[in-house]
């Protein structure tokens, strides 16, 4: 018992040097804080453009959707037209109307093999149009956020760019 007591006593005596560990820990902390950056999450829109399909007739059985985006002289959006319907209003209203028109044409349903998967849209944009309008147009036609549930409903699945517009 005496020995044990001594051991216990000895244990209390051991003094681990904390300073180096804390130094390193702070070094690590500073490193991680410095390299930390908040990045907004990014997502992708898939477009499939096989070379052979260029100029070939569309394989889709649906009525082809053709979206025309016309630009003003400074690259701002001037007009949006789906097939032959032109939309009015400011930029936001135009895209909202475009989305409504798409919903009217192909409907909203969640079932498999629905019209959404079959449908294809061709985007014909002016050369000098700012790219973010194209992304907004793609956003408007590929899906919408249900205002009630906040879930994403898919609309047109396939997107392609009109050939020749980039030349």
């Amino acid at each position, binding site marked *: 018992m005496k020995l044990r007591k001594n051991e216990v006593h000895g244990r209390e005596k051991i003094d681990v040097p*904390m300073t180096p*560990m*804390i130094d390193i*820990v*702070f070094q*690590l*902390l500073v490193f*991680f*804080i410095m*390299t*930390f950056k908040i*990045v*907004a*999450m*990014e*997502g*992708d*829109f*898939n*477009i*499939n*453009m*096989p*070379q052979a399909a*260029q100029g070939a007739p569309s394989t889709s059985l649906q009525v082809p959707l053709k979206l025309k*985006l016309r*630009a003003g002289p400074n*690259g701002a959006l001037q007009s949006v037209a789906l097939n032959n319907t032109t939309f009015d209003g400011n930029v936001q209203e135009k895209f909202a109307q475009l989305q409504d028109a798409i919903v009217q044409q192909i409907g909203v349903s969640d079932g498999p093999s629905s019209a959404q998967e079959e449908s294809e849209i061709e985007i014909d*944009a*002016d*050369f*000098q*149009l*700012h*790219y*973010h*309008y*194209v*992304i*907004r147009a*793609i*956003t408007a036609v*590929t*899906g919408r*956020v249900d205002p009630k549930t906040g879930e*994403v409903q898919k609309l047109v699945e396939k997107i392609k*760019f009109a050939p020749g*517009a*980039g*030349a």
Partner: protein
Amino acid sequence: MKIHKKKREMLEGDLTPMIDMTFQLIAFFMVLINFTQADQNKEIKLPESELAKPPEVPFENAITLQIYKNGNVYFDGNDFTLDSLRPRLVVEKQIADEFKGKDGGAQNVTVIIRGDSFVETGKVQETIKLCQDVGFEKFALRAKEKVPY
């Protein structure tokens, strides 16, 4: 003197809670740190979209082309014009065909396009066209997630 001694002994505070907290902080930053975002070019301001959700499964084979406002392309650490990009992409396609031949080669490589908000659409389409000419078929337009409030 006695009082002095007592005071000095009191100064040795308990470090355990502080170290606990510090480790918590380190763990927090370690988990959140993201090295995979390193291929983002800061000069490029991506367009925003409500539908741009991060993919659940990242692309298996992908190359990222980043298009500046003036239409030049940043790829693999260097800046290219459209003309100088072509030979570089041809090399990339050959590598894809050589090493990923089983998976379909260049046809199965996704070209992720990170275009600046204000680049001309025609420039983006020219870049896509160039990739098509070289032999890539899958494209993904990247956008920043916009949180709808």
